[in-house]
């Protein structure tokens, strides 16, 4: 047996050929995940990857851990039962925007409120890839796809706001094109005790190429994104020339020529109200003057985990009633004898 502290990313690769399209953002996520697991030093035998259906959901086949490739939308439910049964395991849910926000939307919100200690990697590419290009619940209104030749009519979901609305205890956003940031967030999610919802912007170069280009392209990235860090003022831009200030409950962009860092919004991930404001920084960044899209941990809190509470109830029941005796159970409280 290999000592988990000596793992490298390669130790997590399987003998299966990776079958995503060349150029897919999933490759980057797989690589960062393998690196993160190597660094985490958890024994491979104690790790389970659970996925639903979709391109991203092939992920477990490529991780040399235990894994379930389940059915569409249900990975979150499957993982809940697994974690309830086996609190000792490190459980990772791999899901996409269709899998977790459309067909599996119900299970996602219930997982978040129950707060099982597991991690959800939500690969958001704003499209259905495996079924060859229909709009998804995160596609912007008006998006032209195979199923919406005249443009989508749906108002899109904002996954960060949705997660906060479901009382998630760890809400973060990262992207496939920023491996370093992604590893940082994956490690933070792993360390968090409770359900970590990690949304990853992931480019589908076949059916929705460039959906996040404004956040990744050198020309626009600096102005349209902000990396938020705990305790740090909100400064962004190629030359750190912009800042964000809170004017009451309203976030506004200021020029650092007119302001000092002391005037700015200092990120506090324990503040639910401010996290809500951050999650609503969801402007269409193609437009001039919009707020940048935040990347990082928007919100984090320590709240009881379902599996811990479940275990406590069982222990309490045993302390009050004693270890279950099968004959007492079968017999019940009232019996009579026939001679």
């Amino acid at each position, binding site marked *: 047996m290999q000592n988990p502290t000596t793992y490298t990313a390669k130790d997590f690769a399987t003998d299966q050929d990776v079958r995503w399209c060349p150029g897919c953002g999933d490759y980057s996520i797989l690589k960062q995940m393998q690196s993160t697991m190597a660094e985490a030093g958890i024994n491979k035998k*104690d790790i389970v990857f659970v996925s639903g259906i979709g391109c991203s959901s092939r992920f477990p086949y490529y991780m040399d851990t235990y894994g379930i490739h*389940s059915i569409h939308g249900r990975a979150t439910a499957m993982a809940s039962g697994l974690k309830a049964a086996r609190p000792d395991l490190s459980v990772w849910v791999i899901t996409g925007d269709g899998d977790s926000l459309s067909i599996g939307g119900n299970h996602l919100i219930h997982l978040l409120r129950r707060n099982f200690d597991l991690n959800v990697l939500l690969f958001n590419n704003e499209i259905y890839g495996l079924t060859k290009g229909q709009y998804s619940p995160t596609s912007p209104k008006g998006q032209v796809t195979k199923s919406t030749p005249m443009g989508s009519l749906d108002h899109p979901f904002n996954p960060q706001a949705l997660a906060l609305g479901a009382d998630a205890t760890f809400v973060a956003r990262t992207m496939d094109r920023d491996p370093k940031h992604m590893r940082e967030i994956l490690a933070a999610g792993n360390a968090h005790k409770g359900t970590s919802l990690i949304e990853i912007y992931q480019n589908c170069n076949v059916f929705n190429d460039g959906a996040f280009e404004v956040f990744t392209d050198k020309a626009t990235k600096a102005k349209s994104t902000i990396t938020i860090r705990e305790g740090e003022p909100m400064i962004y831009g190629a030359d750190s020339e912009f800042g964000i200030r809170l004017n009451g409950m309203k976030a506004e962009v200021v020029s650092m020529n007119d302001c000092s860092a002391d005037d700015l919004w200092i990120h506090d991930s324990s503040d639910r109200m401010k996290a809500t404001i951050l999650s609503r920084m969801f402007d269409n960044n193609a437009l001039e003057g919009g707020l940048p899209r935040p990347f990082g941990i928007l919100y984090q809190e320590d709240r009881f985990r379902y599996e811990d509470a479940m275990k406590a109830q069982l222990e309490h029941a045993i302390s009050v009633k004693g270890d279950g005796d099968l004959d007492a159970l*079968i017999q019940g409280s009232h019996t009579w004898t*026939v001679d």
Partner: protein
Amino acid sequence: MTKTTEKRKDVTILFAGDSGDGMQLTGSLFTDTNAHYGNDISTFPNFPAEIRAPQGTVAGVSGFKLHFASVDIFTPGDEVEVLVAMNAAALKANVSQLKKGGTIIANTAGFDKKNLRLAKYESDVSPLLDKTLDQFRVVEIDVTKMTKEALANSGLGTKDIDRCKNMFVLGFLLWMYNRSMETTQSFITEKFSKKPDIKDANLTVLKAGYYFGDTNETFTSRYEVESANLPSGEYRSIMGNQAAALGAIVAANKAGLELFYGSYPITPASDILHELARHKNYGVKTFQAEDEIAAICASIGASFGGSLGMTASSGPGIALKGEAMGLAVMLEIPLLIINVQRGGPSTGLPTKTEQSDLMQAMYGRNGEAPLVIVSASHPSDCFDAMVEAVRITVEHMIPAMFMSDGFIANGSEPWSFPKAADISSITPRWADPEKSLSDETYFPFRRNEKLVREWAIPGMENLQHRVGGLEKENETGNVSYDPDNHELMVKIRQEKVDLIANHIPAQEIAQGDESGSVLVLGWGSTYGAIRTAVRDLIKDGHKVSQAHVRYLNPFPKNLEELMSKFDRVLIPEINNGQLVHLINAKYGTGAVPFNKIQGMPFTSREIKEQIKELI
């Protein structure tokens, strides 16, 4: 005036009233008392789908039927001898079940003009007063008024007082059947220990009802049903859902597994969840999921982690679980699915019984996804059938469905319960981190002679593997689109079920000779009615036999041969003909269907008549 006591072999009483009148409680307390007197008992609650349907209407009538006897009985009785009618609607809904010369105990307060109108009686004249009930003996008691009078000084409000009136009826019946009030008194004392005024009120009214019978000169005779000649031993009373829950806990324990029960509330399966949730000190983990799909998926997740995953529902919920069941068939892991059937299709008749989900159990999944089906035939049989179902799902690494229905789920009977030590252990086929590797490779879908794969769970060193719903290569479990492999895997999954026939008991004849004129073949909750009908016909000299099938997929190996010894095979079912279809399709038996689809169980008389047609 002296009161005489008449002996009776068996009595069927139907307690009927508004769904808020407490008839279910009255019935079950009277049942408990009779059980303690050693009667054989069978009960059948029958209530509306609405929790509080409009008061006074026929739709809102809740009934509890109780058959108790000094002889062996197997059904809650065909015809009713005593009908307790708390109001006009209760009478109207149930009077057709009352046999000629039967007794009606009527609460006259429930027969005022308003109640008559709500019950849609055409005339203003109470049926208690016109001639329509001449063929019955009518006992009129103003239960409402007497309850009020008994509690005049209690200080309780009208509402609380009115809630006690069922205890008056119960007290009266305890007197009428020569029973002590003790069992009921201790129940009341325990239940209302924290509400002393309610406790005292119920005890007062109970006694008032009892003494009313004793002192009132209208009632000159009491009845007595002597204890039944049940096999000696220790007994308890048990309901089907309760027995299923206890069976699940015991079976999980016998397999050395933690029980994980994922469930979403649905009638009539919820009581299993309630029962299991009470037994956390047995290590039972109950999880009330957000929906039916999550319930089964969480259970699959738990099984993947090495627990015994179990989920329950009724028809509509089972439909929702279909895709996940298919996944469990593909994963080849233990999973127990309980279907407490009710009237369908769609929402159907939620509180009524039916056997209409057999085809759903057999075929209700996409692709060809066979699983094991085990059915229970009477309330206490839910325990044994559950242990058997768990044994198969665990030892054969295949999902199993346990079938019961609303009739046996809510029905109760005395149970000569087993000792835990007498139940044989269940042996999972665990993988072994040392021995399961060949050349450092693990083959998660390598099989033994039963085609059963090993159960490797997270935490087992070096056995990391991935499973999923995509077709997989045999042995390696890798995703495979190979045409020949797919055909092989579909055949293997079927053969795996077929081979289980080698590991279940042979079908037995329940009563009668091994050959003859008619074999009545049943499954599930028709057991009691068939048993009574066949017993009576055998007594009359007919060559009739009964066989009741517990294992529905696969069928016992000898079933075809067993049926071939009879001129005719009759298959009574509470559906439009499902087992009969499976039997005739598989064996070409030419079995004759007999169907009732009224949300109600067969009476033994109905079955007897039908058998006579075939003799």
